[in-house]
Protein backbone atom coordinates (compact mmCIF):
# COMPACT_ATOMS: atom_id res chain seq x y z
CA UNK A 1 0.00 0.00 0.00
CA UNK A 2 1.20 3.51 -0.86
CA UNK A 3 0.07 6.78 0.70
CA UNK A 4 1.12 9.85 -1.26
CA UNK A 5 3.73 7.64 -2.95
CA UNK A 6 5.18 6.54 0.41
CA UNK A 7 5.18 2.80 1.02
CA UNK A 8 3.22 1.66 4.07
CA UNK A 9 4.47 -1.64 5.46
CA UNK A 10 1.94 -4.35 6.24
CA UNK A 11 2.61 -4.39 9.95
CA UNK A 12 1.20 -3.13 13.22
CA UNK A 13 2.15 -1.15 16.29
CA UNK A 14 1.84 -2.99 19.57
CA UNK A 15 0.59 -0.97 22.53
CA UNK A 16 -0.15 -1.61 26.19
CA UNK A 17 -2.85 -0.91 28.76
CA UNK A 18 -1.85 1.95 31.01
CA UNK A 19 -3.38 4.26 33.60
CA UNK A 20 -3.60 7.97 32.89
CA UNK A 21 -4.58 11.23 34.47
CA UNK A 22 -4.89 14.77 33.17
CA UNK A 23 -3.99 17.91 35.08
CA UNK A 24 -4.33 21.56 34.16
CA UNK A 25 -1.53 23.89 35.18
CA UNK A 26 -2.13 27.65 35.11
CA UNK A 27 0.04 30.67 35.84
CA UNK A 28 0.02 34.46 35.55
CA UNK A 29 1.44 34.28 32.04
CA UNK A 30 2.37 31.78 29.37
CA UNK A 31 6.07 31.92 30.21
CA UNK A 32 5.62 30.64 33.76
CA UNK A 33 2.91 28.16 32.86
CA UNK A 34 5.29 26.72 30.27
CA UNK A 35 8.19 26.68 32.74
CA UNK A 36 6.07 24.69 35.16
CA UNK A 37 4.82 22.09 32.68
CA UNK A 38 8.23 21.69 31.05
CA UNK A 39 9.64 20.90 34.45
CA UNK A 40 6.73 18.58 35.30
CA UNK A 41 7.08 16.59 32.08
CA UNK A 42 10.86 16.45 32.20
CA UNK A 43 12.45 12.99 32.52
CA UNK A 44 9.12 11.36 31.70
CA UNK A 45 9.80 9.68 28.37
CA UNK A 46 9.40 6.00 29.12
CA UNK A 47 8.08 3.92 32.00
CA UNK A 48 11.14 1.71 31.60
CA UNK A 49 13.15 4.06 33.81
CA UNK A 50 11.13 7.23 34.43
CA UNK A 51 8.13 5.73 36.22
CA UNK A 52 5.74 7.77 34.17
CA UNK A 53 5.31 8.99 30.60
CA UNK A 54 4.12 12.56 30.46
CA UNK A 55 3.66 15.32 27.95
CA UNK A 56 1.84 18.53 27.18
CA UNK A 57 -1.50 17.72 25.60
CA UNK A 58 -2.31 21.26 24.51
CA UNK A 59 -2.14 24.91 25.39
CA UNK A 60 -5.38 26.22 26.85
CA UNK A 61 -7.06 29.54 26.23
CA UNK A 62 -7.85 31.71 29.24
CA UNK A 63 -11.53 30.88 28.82
CA UNK A 64 -10.74 27.16 29.02
CA UNK A 65 -8.87 27.14 32.33
CA UNK A 66 -10.63 26.92 35.72
CA UNK A 67 -9.21 30.23 36.94
CA UNK A 68 -9.22 32.19 33.68
CA UNK A 69 -5.42 32.38 33.41
CA UNK A 70 -2.94 31.01 30.89
CA UNK A 71 -2.60 27.27 31.15
CA UNK A 72 -1.55 23.93 29.78
CA UNK A 73 -3.17 20.54 29.86
CA UNK A 74 -0.79 17.71 30.74
CA UNK A 75 -1.32 13.96 30.48
CA UNK A 76 0.56 11.45 32.61
CA UNK A 77 0.63 7.72 31.87
CA UNK A 78 1.87 4.90 34.04
CA UNK A 79 1.69 1.13 34.18
CA UNK A 80 0.16 1.03 37.67
CA UNK A 81 -2.08 3.13 39.85
CA UNK A 82 0.47 3.26 42.65
CA UNK A 83 3.25 4.51 40.42
CA UNK A 84 0.99 7.11 38.83
CA UNK A 85 -0.08 8.33 42.25
CA UNK A 86 3.50 8.54 43.46
CA UNK A 87 4.86 10.25 40.36
CA UNK A 88 1.99 12.73 40.16
CA UNK A 89 2.39 13.82 43.75
CA UNK A 90 6.17 14.06 43.55
CA UNK A 91 6.23 15.95 40.28
CA UNK A 92 3.46 18.39 41.24
CA UNK A 93 5.16 18.97 44.58
CA UNK A 94 8.58 19.61 43.13
CA UNK A 95 7.74 21.24 39.79
CA UNK A 96 4.39 23.05 40.12
CA UNK A 97 4.27 24.02 43.78
CA UNK A 98 7.76 25.45 43.46
CA UNK A 99 7.10 27.41 40.26
CA UNK A 100 6.01 31.05 40.77
CA UNK A 101 2.36 32.04 40.23
CA UNK A 102 1.11 28.56 39.35
CA UNK A 103 -2.05 26.68 40.30
CA UNK A 104 -3.02 23.11 39.46
CA UNK A 105 -6.41 21.58 38.75
CA UNK A 106 -7.77 18.20 37.78
CA UNK A 107 -8.53 17.83 34.09
CA UNK A 108 -10.63 14.69 34.39
CA UNK A 109 -13.71 13.61 36.29
CA UNK A 110 -14.30 10.01 37.22
CA UNK A 111 -14.98 7.56 39.98
CA UNK A 112 -11.43 6.38 40.54
CA UNK A 113 -9.75 9.35 42.18
CA UNK A 114 -6.10 9.72 43.13
CA UNK A 115 -4.54 12.47 45.27
CA UNK A 116 -3.38 15.64 43.56
CA UNK A 117 -3.05 18.25 46.31
CA UNK A 118 -4.38 16.03 49.07
CA UNK A 119 -1.02 15.47 50.70
CA UNK A 120 0.71 18.58 49.34
CA UNK A 121 -1.53 20.59 51.62
CA UNK A 122 0.61 19.63 54.60
CA UNK A 123 3.29 21.89 53.16
CA UNK A 124 1.03 24.66 54.47
CA UNK A 125 1.98 23.59 58.01
CA UNK A 126 -1.50 24.18 59.36
CA UNK A 127 -2.06 27.50 57.57
CA UNK A 128 -3.61 25.80 54.54
CA UNK A 129 -7.27 26.54 53.85
CA UNK A 130 -9.72 24.04 52.40
CA UNK A 131 -12.39 25.27 49.99
CA UNK A 132 -15.28 23.25 48.67
CA UNK A 133 -16.42 24.76 45.37
CA UNK A 134 -19.03 23.15 43.17
CA UNK A 135 -18.65 19.80 44.89
CA UNK A 136 -14.86 19.68 44.58
CA UNK A 137 -12.30 20.33 47.29
CA UNK A 138 -9.43 22.75 46.75
CA UNK A 139 -6.50 23.67 48.95
CA UNK A 140 -5.05 27.13 49.37
CA UNK A 141 -1.48 26.74 50.56
CA UNK A 142 0.34 29.90 51.66
CA UNK A 143 3.66 30.31 49.81
CA UNK A 144 6.11 33.19 49.50
CA UNK A 145 4.56 34.66 46.33
CA UNK A 146 1.05 34.58 47.75
CA UNK A 147 -0.79 31.30 47.70
CA UNK A 148 -0.71 28.05 45.79
CA UNK A 149 -4.11 26.74 44.78
CA UNK A 150 -4.53 23.05 44.02
CA UNK A 151 -7.40 20.68 43.60
CA UNK A 152 -7.47 17.83 46.09
CA UNK A 153 -7.94 14.92 43.69
CA UNK A 154 -7.89 14.01 40.05
CA UNK A 155 -9.35 11.04 38.24
CA UNK A 156 -7.37 8.07 37.03
CA UNK A 157 -8.67 6.36 33.92
CA UNK A 158 -7.61 3.41 31.76
CA UNK A 159 -5.52 4.46 28.76
CA UNK A 160 -3.21 3.07 26.08
CA UNK A 161 0.51 3.66 25.79
CA UNK A 162 2.94 2.74 23.06
CA UNK A 163 1.08 3.43 19.83
CA UNK A 164 3.87 4.09 17.35
CA UNK A 165 5.17 4.21 13.82
CA UNK A 166 8.63 4.19 12.29
CA UNK A 167 9.79 6.57 9.60
CA UNK A 168 12.28 4.92 7.24
CA UNK A 169 14.17 7.51 5.20
CA UNK A 170 17.19 7.79 2.94
CA UNK A 171 19.09 10.07 5.30
CA UNK A 172 18.88 11.66 8.74
CA UNK A 173 17.93 15.16 7.57
CA UNK A 174 14.88 13.92 5.68
CA UNK A 175 13.88 11.56 8.47
CA UNK A 176 14.09 14.29 11.10
CA UNK A 177 12.21 16.76 8.93
CA UNK A 178 9.44 14.21 8.32
CA UNK A 179 9.15 13.51 12.05
CA UNK A 180 9.00 17.22 12.83
CA UNK A 181 6.14 17.65 10.36
CA UNK A 182 4.34 14.66 11.87
CA UNK A 183 4.72 15.96 15.41
CA UNK A 184 3.61 19.45 14.44
CA UNK A 185 0.46 18.05 12.85
CA UNK A 186 -0.67 16.42 16.12
CA UNK A 187 0.64 19.12 18.44
CA UNK A 188 -2.80 20.05 19.78
CA UNK A 189 -4.48 16.75 19.09
CA UNK A 190 -6.88 16.00 21.98
CA UNK A 191 -6.27 13.12 24.39
CA UNK A 192 -2.78 12.18 23.08
CA UNK A 193 0.82 12.97 23.90
CA UNK A 194 4.17 12.12 22.37
CA UNK A 195 6.31 11.69 25.49
CA UNK A 196 9.80 11.55 23.95
CA UNK A 197 12.07 14.58 23.39
CA UNK A 198 10.42 16.65 20.70
CA UNK A 199 8.09 13.69 20.20
CA UNK A 200 10.72 11.60 18.40
CA UNK A 201 12.70 8.51 19.45
CA UNK A 202 15.92 7.51 17.76
CA UNK A 203 16.69 4.60 20.07
CA UNK A 204 13.78 2.26 19.48
CA UNK A 205 14.13 -0.82 21.65
CA UNK A 206 13.35 -4.50 21.65
CA UNK A 207 12.54 -6.58 24.69
CA UNK A 208 15.55 -8.25 26.33
CA UNK A 209 19.23 -8.31 25.55
CA UNK A 210 22.17 -10.63 25.29
CA UNK A 211 23.07 -9.23 28.69
CA UNK A 212 20.89 -10.82 31.38
CA UNK A 213 20.71 -7.69 33.53
CA UNK A 214 19.12 -5.60 30.76
CA UNK A 215 15.36 -5.67 30.09
CA UNK A 216 15.50 -3.71 26.81
CA UNK A 217 18.14 -3.14 24.20
CA UNK A 218 18.56 -1.57 20.77
CA UNK A 219 16.12 -2.55 18.06
CA UNK A 220 18.82 -4.06 15.84
CA UNK A 221 16.36 -4.99 13.08
CA UNK A 222 15.90 -1.28 12.36
CA UNK A 223 19.47 -0.04 12.87
CA UNK A 224 20.87 1.04 9.49
CA UNK A 225 24.42 0.43 10.68
CA UNK A 226 23.64 -3.24 11.29
CA UNK A 227 22.22 -4.01 7.88
CA UNK A 228 24.86 -6.59 7.14
CA UNK A 229 25.21 -8.21 10.54
CA UNK A 230 21.70 -8.55 12.02
CA UNK A 231 18.28 -9.77 10.91
CA UNK A 232 17.67 -6.44 9.30
CA UNK A 233 14.26 -5.31 8.13
CA UNK A 234 15.77 -2.41 6.19
CA UNK A 235 16.32 -2.18 2.49
CA UNK A 236 19.65 -1.01 1.11
CA UNK A 237 18.32 2.52 0.55
CA UNK A 238 17.43 3.22 4.22
CA UNK A 239 19.94 5.45 6.00
CA UNK A 240 17.94 6.50 9.04
CA UNK A 241 14.94 5.31 11.08
CA UNK A 242 13.11 7.30 13.70
CA UNK A 243 10.08 6.39 15.80
CA UNK A 244 7.13 8.44 16.98
CA UNK A 245 5.46 7.05 20.09
CA UNK A 246 1.90 8.12 20.84
CA UNK A 247 0.07 7.55 24.12
CA UNK A 248 -3.66 8.21 24.23
CA UNK A 249 -6.69 7.97 26.45
CA UNK A 250 -8.61 5.81 24.00
CA UNK A 251 -7.82 3.63 21.02
CA UNK A 252 -9.54 5.94 18.55
CA UNK A 253 -7.47 8.90 19.82
CA UNK A 254 -4.24 7.07 18.97
CA UNK A 255 -5.59 5.91 15.63
CA UNK A 256 -6.61 9.45 14.69
CA UNK A 257 -3.26 10.85 15.75
CA UNK A 258 -1.32 8.16 13.84
CA UNK A 259 -3.40 8.78 10.74
CA UNK A 260 -2.95 12.57 10.93
CA UNK A 261 0.77 12.37 11.58
CA UNK A 262 1.53 9.80 8.84
CA UNK A 263 -0.65 11.64 6.33
CA UNK A 264 1.11 14.91 7.13
CA UNK A 265 4.64 13.59 6.71
CA UNK A 266 3.86 11.77 3.48
CA UNK A 267 2.75 15.08 1.99
CA UNK A 268 6.13 16.78 2.58
CA UNK A 269 7.99 18.07 -0.47
CA UNK A 270 10.84 15.59 -0.32
CA UNK A 271 8.58 12.58 0.32
CA UNK A 272 10.39 10.65 -2.39
CA UNK A 273 13.25 10.29 0.12
CA UNK A 274 10.97 8.61 2.64
CA UNK A 275 11.44 4.92 1.94
CA UNK A 276 8.53 3.70 4.02
CA UNK A 277 6.45 3.78 7.17
CA UNK A 278 6.66 0.80 9.48
CA UNK A 279 5.75 0.15 13.12
CA UNK A 280 7.29 -1.33 16.23
CA UNK A 281 5.91 -4.51 17.74
CA UNK A 282 6.95 -7.53 19.76
CA UNK A 283 5.37 -10.15 17.55
CA UNK A 284 1.93 -9.34 18.93
CA UNK A 285 2.45 -11.39 22.09
CA UNK A 286 3.04 -8.67 24.68
CA UNK A 287 0.73 -5.75 23.99
CA UNK A 288 -3.05 -5.82 24.35
CA UNK A 289 -3.59 -3.36 21.48
CA UNK A 290 -2.53 -3.77 17.86
CA UNK A 291 -2.68 -0.78 15.52
CA UNK A 292 -2.52 -2.06 11.96
CA UNK A 293 -1.02 0.66 9.80
CA UNK A 294 -2.84 -0.12 6.57
CA UNK A 295 -6.19 -0.45 8.32
CA UNK A 296 -5.77 2.90 10.06
CA UNK A 297 -4.71 4.69 6.90
CA UNK A 298 -7.51 3.32 4.71
Amino acid at each position, binding site marked *: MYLNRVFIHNTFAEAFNMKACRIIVTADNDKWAKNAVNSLTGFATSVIACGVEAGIECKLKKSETPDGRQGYSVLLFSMSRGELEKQLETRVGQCILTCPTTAVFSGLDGEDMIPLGKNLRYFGDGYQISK*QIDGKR*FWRIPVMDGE*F*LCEEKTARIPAIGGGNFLVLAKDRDVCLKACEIAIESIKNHPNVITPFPGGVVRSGSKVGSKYKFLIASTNDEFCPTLKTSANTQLGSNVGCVMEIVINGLERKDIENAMKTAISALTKMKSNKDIVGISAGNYGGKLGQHHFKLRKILK
Partner: protein
Amino acid sequence: MKSLIFSLKKKLKYRLDVSKLYNCNYKNLQEVKKFKLNYGKNIINASELFSISGNVSSNIVIKSSSELLDNVGKDFQGESITIYGNVGNNLGQEMKSGCITVHGNTLDYTASGIKGGVIHIMGNVGDYFCAKPNHANEGMKNGTIYIRGNCGDFGLRRMRRGMVIINGDVGKNFCSEMISGTILINGKIGNDFGKKIKRGTFILRKKELTKDYIKSNNCNYNFFPFLKKNVCSITNNERIMSYKYFERYSSNKDESNLSEIFLLH
Protein backbone atom coordinates in the same frame (compact mmCIF):
# COMPACT_ATOMS: atom_id res chain seq x y z
CA MET B 1 -35.18 16.30 28.39
CA LYS B 2 -38.09 14.29 29.78
CA SER B 3 -39.90 15.99 32.65
CA LEU B 4 -42.68 15.16 35.07
CA ILE B 5 -44.89 18.25 35.18
CA PHE B 6 -47.15 19.20 38.09
CA SER B 7 -49.51 22.16 37.68
CA LEU B 8 -51.67 23.28 40.58
CA LYS B 9 -55.29 23.09 39.49
CA LYS B 10 -56.70 25.44 42.11
CA LYS B 11 -55.68 27.83 44.85
CA LEU B 12 -54.71 25.89 47.96
CA LYS B 13 -56.64 26.40 51.22
CA TYR B 14 -54.29 24.50 53.50
CA ARG B 15 -50.56 23.93 53.68
CA LEU B 16 -49.51 20.92 51.63
CA ASP B 17 -46.53 18.69 52.40
CA VAL B 18 -45.15 17.38 49.10
CA SER B 19 -41.87 15.96 50.41
CA LYS B 20 -42.72 12.39 49.43
CA LEU B 21 -44.20 13.28 46.07
CA TYR B 22 -40.88 13.41 44.22
CA ASN B 23 -38.84 10.75 45.94
CA CYS B 24 -40.75 7.65 44.85
CA ASN B 25 -39.78 5.30 42.07
CA TYR B 26 -42.91 5.53 40.01
CA LYS B 27 -43.51 3.02 37.22
CA ASN B 28 -45.97 5.12 35.26
CA LEU B 29 -47.95 8.33 35.31
CA GLN B 30 -51.01 6.62 36.85
CA GLU B 31 -49.02 5.84 39.99
CA VAL B 32 -48.05 9.48 40.31
CA LYS B 33 -51.66 10.57 39.93
CA LYS B 34 -52.79 8.12 42.63
CA PHE B 35 -50.12 9.19 45.11
CA LYS B 36 -51.77 10.00 48.43
CA LEU B 37 -51.33 13.44 49.94
CA ASN B 38 -52.48 14.79 53.31
CA TYR B 39 -54.50 17.88 52.60
CA GLY B 40 -56.27 19.52 55.55
CA LYS B 41 -58.12 16.71 57.33
CA ASN B 42 -58.34 14.54 54.21
CA ILE B 43 -56.13 12.15 52.31
CA ILE B 44 -56.48 12.74 48.59
CA ASN B 45 -54.95 11.66 45.29
CA ALA B 46 -52.28 13.95 43.87
CA SER B 47 -54.36 14.27 40.71
CA GLU B 48 -57.08 16.10 42.65
CA LEU B 49 -54.78 19.03 43.28
CA PHE B 50 -52.36 18.83 40.40
CA SER B 51 -52.74 18.26 36.73
CA ILE B 52 -49.91 15.82 36.10
CA SER B 53 -48.36 15.36 32.68
CA GLY B 54 -45.09 14.55 30.94
CA ASN B 55 -43.02 11.45 31.62
CA VAL B 56 -41.98 9.72 34.80
CA SER B 57 -38.54 11.13 35.39
CA SER B 58 -36.36 12.71 38.06
CA ASN B 59 -36.69 16.05 36.27
CA ILE B 60 -39.63 17.70 37.99
CA VAL B 61 -41.39 20.86 36.88
CA ILE B 62 -43.93 22.59 39.13
CA LYS B 63 -46.06 25.20 37.43
CA SER B 64 -48.25 27.83 39.09
CA SER B 65 -46.74 26.96 42.45
CA SER B 66 -48.01 28.36 45.77
CA GLU B 67 -46.35 29.51 49.00
CA LEU B 68 -48.48 26.86 50.74
CA LEU B 69 -46.41 24.08 49.15
CA ASP B 70 -44.01 22.92 51.85
CA ASN B 71 -41.01 20.59 51.76
CA VAL B 72 -40.48 20.83 48.02
CA GLY B 73 -37.27 18.95 47.23
CA LYS B 74 -36.78 17.67 50.77
CA ASP B 75 -34.07 14.96 50.76
CA PHE B 76 -33.97 15.36 46.97
CA GLN B 77 -31.35 13.40 45.04
CA GLY B 78 -32.77 13.34 41.53
CA GLU B 79 -31.74 15.47 38.59
CA SER B 80 -33.71 18.70 38.82
CA ILE B 81 -36.75 20.49 40.17
CA THR B 82 -37.86 23.67 38.44
CA ILE B 83 -40.55 25.73 40.14
CA TYR B 84 -42.50 28.57 38.57
CA GLY B 85 -44.00 30.72 41.33
CA ASN B 86 -43.47 30.95 45.08
CA VAL B 87 -42.92 28.01 47.38
CA GLY B 88 -43.37 27.49 51.11
CA ASN B 89 -41.14 26.34 53.92
CA ASN B 90 -38.26 23.87 53.88
CA LEU B 91 -37.41 24.04 50.19
CA GLY B 92 -34.53 21.65 49.49
CA GLN B 93 -34.20 20.65 53.11
CA GLU B 94 -31.31 18.20 53.47
CA MET B 95 -31.21 17.68 49.71
CA LYS B 96 -28.29 15.53 48.59
CA SER B 97 -27.76 16.21 44.90
CA GLY B 98 -29.36 17.63 41.78
CA CYS B 99 -30.48 21.16 41.04
CA ILE B 100 -33.49 23.12 42.28
CA THR B 101 -34.44 26.34 40.52
CA VAL B 102 -37.17 28.59 41.88
CA HIS B 103 -38.56 31.36 39.70
CA GLY B 104 -40.16 33.07 42.67
CA ASN B 105 -39.77 33.51 46.43
CA THR B 106 -39.43 30.97 49.21
CA LEU B 107 -40.48 31.01 52.86
CA ASP B 108 -38.52 29.97 55.94
CA TYR B 109 -35.98 27.20 56.45
CA THR B 110 -34.99 27.16 52.81
CA ALA B 111 -32.15 24.69 52.20
CA SER B 112 -31.79 23.88 55.88
CA GLY B 113 -29.20 21.17 56.40
CA ILE B 114 -28.49 20.91 52.67
CA LYS B 115 -25.90 18.17 52.01
CA GLY B 116 -25.13 18.75 48.34
CA GLY B 117 -26.48 19.87 44.99
CA VAL B 118 -27.31 23.30 43.66
CA ILE B 119 -30.19 25.67 44.47
CA HIS B 120 -30.98 28.79 42.44
CA ILE B 121 -33.63 31.13 43.80
CA MET B 122 -34.54 33.98 41.53
CA GLY B 123 -36.55 35.85 44.17
CA ASN B 124 -36.28 36.41 47.92
CA VAL B 125 -35.85 33.97 50.77
CA GLY B 126 -37.44 34.03 54.22
CA ASP B 127 -35.89 33.57 57.67
CA TYR B 128 -33.67 30.71 58.81
CA PHE B 129 -32.13 30.23 55.38
CA CYS B 130 -29.77 27.21 55.45
CA ALA B 131 -30.59 26.81 59.12
CA LYS B 132 -29.59 23.93 61.30
CA PRO B 133 -32.27 21.19 61.27
CA ASN B 134 -33.60 20.38 64.73
CA HIS B 135 -32.00 16.95 64.81
CA ALA B 136 -28.60 18.05 63.50
CA ASN B 137 -25.65 19.89 64.93
CA GLU B 138 -24.64 21.61 61.69
CA GLY B 139 -26.47 23.75 59.17
CA MET B 140 -25.45 23.69 55.54
CA LYS B 141 -23.12 20.72 55.05
CA ASN B 142 -22.29 21.19 51.37
CA GLY B 143 -23.67 22.44 48.09
CA THR B 144 -23.98 25.64 46.13
CA ILE B 145 -26.76 28.19 46.54
CA TYR B 146 -27.44 31.34 44.56
CA ILE B 147 -30.07 33.85 45.69
CA ARG B 148 -30.83 36.67 43.35
CA GLY B 149 -32.91 38.64 45.86
CA ASN B 150 -32.77 39.25 49.60
CA CYS B 151 -32.60 36.98 52.63
CA GLY B 152 -34.42 37.19 55.96
CA ASP B 153 -32.98 36.88 59.46
CA PHE B 154 -31.01 34.11 61.19
CA GLY B 155 -29.61 32.65 57.99
CA LEU B 156 -26.63 30.30 57.55
CA ARG B 157 -26.33 29.29 61.18
CA ARG B 158 -23.59 26.74 61.82
CA MET B 159 -22.69 26.40 58.15
CA ARG B 160 -20.13 23.63 57.66
CA ARG B 161 -19.00 23.94 54.03
CA GLY B 162 -20.21 24.88 50.55
CA MET B 163 -20.74 28.15 48.75
CA VAL B 164 -23.55 30.69 49.05
CA ILE B 165 -23.97 33.67 46.74
CA ILE B 166 -26.50 36.32 47.73
CA ASN B 167 -26.98 39.18 45.33
CA GLY B 168 -29.28 41.20 47.60
CA ASP B 169 -29.45 42.15 51.30
CA VAL B 170 -29.43 39.88 54.32
CA GLY B 171 -31.18 40.30 57.67
CA LYS B 172 -29.90 40.18 61.23
CA ASN B 173 -27.96 37.40 62.95
CA PHE B 174 -26.56 36.05 59.71
CA CYS B 175 -23.75 33.44 59.67
CA SER B 176 -23.72 32.91 63.43
CA GLU B 177 -21.50 30.08 64.74
CA MET B 178 -20.31 29.43 61.21
CA ILE B 179 -17.82 26.54 61.04
CA SER B 180 -16.56 27.04 57.49
CA GLY B 181 -17.66 27.81 53.93
CA THR B 182 -17.60 30.55 51.34
CA ILE B 183 -20.18 33.35 51.24
CA LEU B 184 -20.59 36.26 48.85
CA ILE B 185 -23.03 39.00 49.85
CA ASN B 186 -23.47 41.88 47.48
CA GLY B 187 -26.09 43.89 49.37
CA LYS B 188 -26.60 45.31 52.85
CA ILE B 189 -26.00 43.21 55.94
CA GLY B 190 -28.13 43.26 59.11
CA ASN B 191 -26.94 43.51 62.71
CA ASP B 192 -25.01 40.86 64.59
CA PHE B 193 -23.41 39.39 61.50
CA GLY B 194 -21.06 36.46 62.03
CA LYS B 195 -21.22 35.93 65.78
CA LYS B 196 -18.93 33.22 67.14
CA ILE B 197 -17.50 32.30 63.75
CA LYS B 198 -14.80 29.64 63.62
CA ARG B 199 -13.63 29.78 59.99
CA GLY B 200 -14.94 30.78 56.59
CA THR B 201 -14.38 33.08 53.65
CA PHE B 202 -16.58 36.12 53.17
CA ILE B 203 -16.67 38.26 50.07
CA LEU B 204 -18.38 41.48 51.10
CA ARG B 205 -18.74 45.11 50.14
CA LYS B 206 -19.35 46.56 53.63
CA LYS B 207 -16.19 47.87 55.31
CA GLU B 208 -17.65 48.13 58.85
CA LEU B 209 -17.56 44.36 59.18
CA THR B 210 -13.78 44.35 58.92
CA LYS B 211 -13.20 46.44 62.05
CA ASP B 212 -12.13 43.49 64.20
CA TYR B 213 -9.80 42.09 61.54
CA ILE B 214 -6.24 42.96 60.53
CA LYS B 215 -5.66 43.90 56.92
CA SER B 216 -3.48 41.40 55.07
CA ASN B 217 -0.59 42.45 52.86
CA ASN B 218 -1.38 43.20 49.27
CA CYS B 219 -0.39 40.12 47.32
CA ASN B 220 -1.75 37.78 44.69
CA TYR B 221 -4.37 35.32 45.81
CA ASN B 222 -4.62 32.57 43.20
CA PHE B 223 -7.88 31.55 44.78
CA PHE B 224 -9.60 34.80 43.89
CA PRO B 225 -9.67 34.66 40.07
CA PHE B 226 -10.69 31.04 40.37
CA LEU B 227 -13.53 31.92 42.72
CA LYS B 228 -14.66 34.79 40.52
CA LYS B 229 -14.83 32.58 37.45
CA ASN B 230 -16.85 29.99 39.37
CA VAL B 231 -19.24 32.56 40.81
CA CYS B 232 -19.85 34.09 37.37
CA SER B 233 -20.40 30.66 35.92
CA ILE B 234 -22.81 29.55 38.68
CA THR B 235 -24.88 32.73 38.53
CA ASN B 236 -24.53 33.21 34.79
CA ASN B 237 -23.80 36.84 35.60
CA GLU B 238 -20.44 38.36 34.65
CA ARG B 239 -20.97 41.40 36.88
CA ILE B 240 -21.99 39.77 40.13
CA MET B 241 -18.48 39.86 41.58
CA SER B 242 -17.19 42.92 39.75
CA TYR B 243 -14.59 45.03 41.56
CA LYS B 244 -11.84 47.54 40.87
CA TYR B 245 -9.64 46.10 43.56
CA PHE B 246 -10.04 44.02 46.70
CA GLU B 247 -8.50 43.91 50.15
CA ARG B 248 -8.14 40.87 52.35
CA TYR B 249 -8.73 40.98 56.08
CA SER B 250 -7.84 38.10 58.38
CA SER B 251 -6.54 37.47 61.91
CA ASN B 252 -9.53 38.55 63.93
CA LYS B 253 -9.01 40.02 67.39
CA ASP B 254 -10.82 36.97 68.68
CA GLU B 255 -8.14 34.27 68.26
CA SER B 256 -10.70 31.51 67.80
CA ASN B 257 -12.06 33.32 64.74
CA LEU B 258 -9.97 32.14 61.78
CA SER B 259 -12.25 33.57 59.10
CA GLU B 260 -11.19 35.93 56.36
CA ILE B 261 -12.94 38.74 54.53
CA PHE B 262 -12.31 39.80 50.97
CA LEU B 263 -13.61 43.35 50.73
CA LEU B 264 -14.56 44.34 47.21
CA HIS B 265 -14.15 47.96 46.11
